[in-house]
């Protein structure tokens, strides 16, 4: 652990660690095989109030800083990043409403989450991934309502969310300026949840298609102004990138912890493999990348706490950390040798879990484009 933690942060980290290690960890291997996470396991986190961390105090939440929230999620991700992202994604959806919605919308959203519910963020469509401006879903005004139609894909929490923040075109001709955001109750008639995605990793996290077929929502459920949805989504995603990065830090730390322990125990050529320089180099590089990633995440979180929009820093953080995580987890498997490749040992899962961090919340290629665009703008 590399940061200067406050007493409060230390106490919260210890609390979450205690819960996650005792109540979640024993089931992770089996649930990873099955590709699911039962509600009873989420109950531990709800009881602790992990769904309230980022909800502002005026809406009954804990109103914790981004910095401390990230530390808590890193701890959870050490045990399972898929479990953690279920809560992180709820906040991705929430952030849109808190940052751009009315106080009434904020309260409505916070009240439903506060009862012990998840939310989902529905932007991606089959033909609109890296290029969300190309989305085809529509919202058509009908009296005081809008009628929503869309097929959304890869929606984290699709099946378990009580609320969606969804993105639809209110003006199909206006490109990204024609996109508007809506809060949608998951039980609204016309919503169909698709099959749970059979994923490579993050298998405790629920991912589904969500189809909206003539779903009627009141005009008051529009978040922000008509046509502001794209900007609003990007603003919220900028703040969310360092949060997925914090999960990748958790995965890396776990990989490092497991690897050092194993390297001290495993003997070849008459000595523990940690005594071999090439193993030492791998371990040292893993530690370097993990520490640097954590510090980067922490700095970005603190910028966010100070009101920065972290347009460039969010992308830098997510890209650097998720790229580091590939090497760190791959080397963990290397240090475990053949055992690392076996599902009997915990490290192959870490390698599977961390791949998606280079893909979602904007693929790393797209992040690099964003960083370069920001640089271009800065140096004008």
């Amino acid at each position, binding site marked *: 652990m590399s940061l200067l933690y406050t*007493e*409060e942060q230390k*106490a*919260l980290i210890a*609390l979450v660690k*205690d*819960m996650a290690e005792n109540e979640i960890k024993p089931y992770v291997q089996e649930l990873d095989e099955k590709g699911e996470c039962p509600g009873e396991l989420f109950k*531990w986190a709800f*009881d*602790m*109030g*992990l769904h*309230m*961390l980022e909800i502002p105090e005026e809406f009954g939440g*804990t109103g*914790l800083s981004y910095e401390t929230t990230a530390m*808590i999620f890193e701890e959870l991700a050490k045990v399972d990043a898929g479990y953690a992202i279920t809560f992180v994604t709820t906040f991705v959806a929430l952030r849109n409403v808190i940052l751009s919605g009315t106080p009434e919308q904020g309260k409505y959203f916070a009240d439903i989450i506060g009862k012990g519910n998840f939310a989902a963020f529905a932007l991606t469509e089959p033909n609109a991934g890296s290029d969300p401006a190309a989305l085809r879903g529509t919202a058509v005004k009908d009296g005081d309502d809008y009628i929503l139609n869309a097929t959304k894909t890869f929606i984290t929490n699709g099946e378990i969310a009580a609320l969606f923040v969804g993105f639809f075109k209110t003006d199909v001709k206006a490109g990204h300026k024609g996109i508007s955001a809506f809060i949608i109750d998951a039980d609204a008639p016309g919503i169909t949840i698709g099959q749970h995605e059979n994923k490579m990793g993050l298998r405790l996290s629920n991912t589904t298609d969500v189809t909206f077929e003539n779903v009627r929502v009141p005009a008051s459920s529009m978040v922000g102004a008509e046509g502001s949805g794209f900007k609003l989504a990007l603003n919220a995603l900028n703040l969310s990138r360092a949060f997925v990065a914090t999960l990748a830090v958790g995965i890396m730390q776990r990989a490092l912890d497991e690897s050092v322990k194993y390297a001290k125990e495993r003997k070849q050529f008459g000595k523990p493999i940690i005594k071999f320089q090439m193993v030492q180099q791998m371990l040292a590089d893993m530690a370097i990348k993990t520490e640097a990633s954590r510090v980067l995440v922490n700095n970005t979180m603190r910028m966010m706490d100070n009101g920065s929009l972290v347009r460039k820093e969010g992308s830098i953080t997510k890209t650097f950390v998720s790229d580091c995580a590939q090497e760190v987890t791959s080397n963990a498997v290397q240090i475990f040798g053949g055992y690392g490749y076996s599902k009997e040992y915990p490290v192959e899962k870490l390698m599977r879990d961390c791949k998606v961090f280079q893909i979602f919340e904007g693929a790393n290629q797209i992040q690099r484009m964003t960083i370069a665009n920001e640089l271009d703008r800065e140096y004008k």
Partner: protein
Amino acid sequence: MNIVVCVKQVPDTTEIKIDPIKKTLIRQGVPSIMNPFDKNALEEAIQLKEQYSGSVTVISMGPEQAKATLREALSMGADKAYLVTDRAFGGSDTYATSYILSKVIEKLGPFDVILGGKQAIDGDTGQTAPSIAEHLGIARLTHIRSMKIDGNKCVVEREIEEGIEIVEAKLPILCTATKETNKPRYATIKGKIDSLKADIENITLADLPNMDITKIGLKGSPTRVKSTFIPERKSSCEMLEIVNPRETAKVLFGKLAEAKIL
């Protein structure tokens, strides 16, 4: 319903070191935790409060750092916490400790239910909580599995060697909890944050005017520790070769009978 829980801060280790001269526990350098059974007692108290409403007070006698344990109790859901601390209390044995705690309970009370752990994992005597009941002149039920309140009575299931005993008793009552009583909850994030900021009042000798000071501290403690030692672990193992399972079983039976295990 008013409930008080006695919690003790203990070193987080089963490998306790003993001061060779003072014959007391060396607490320095060992991380401290809430005595695990006291967590069960606190959980029971919070459940009673949730079921019958009321409030939960926690008290601990010990040095200033025992406040960490009281904060933990607050983070789990206790309403109020007091540290019982005074130089005059130092060196108290179980008799003196329980006497002091009984005076604190009288001062803070009246309480309907007093809860404690079945024993502390360091001192391990299991005497303090029952002795508190003696000092207060109330009934006590140790090793409870469950507890229900019915007006001014309670019905308690107790673990005993032969099975489970169901006992009814009048309130106020003192009960001690074990691992089997319940599964203690985790603190909430909000509870944890609030507990770190909470004010914890100290209760000192000056706050307990009707205390008989000949019964407290080292001087008031009838117990003298003559010597403390870690017993040597002796175990021997005898392997029986199985030629005929039936015959070997008979030999094994004979050996166990000889060792008075059967």
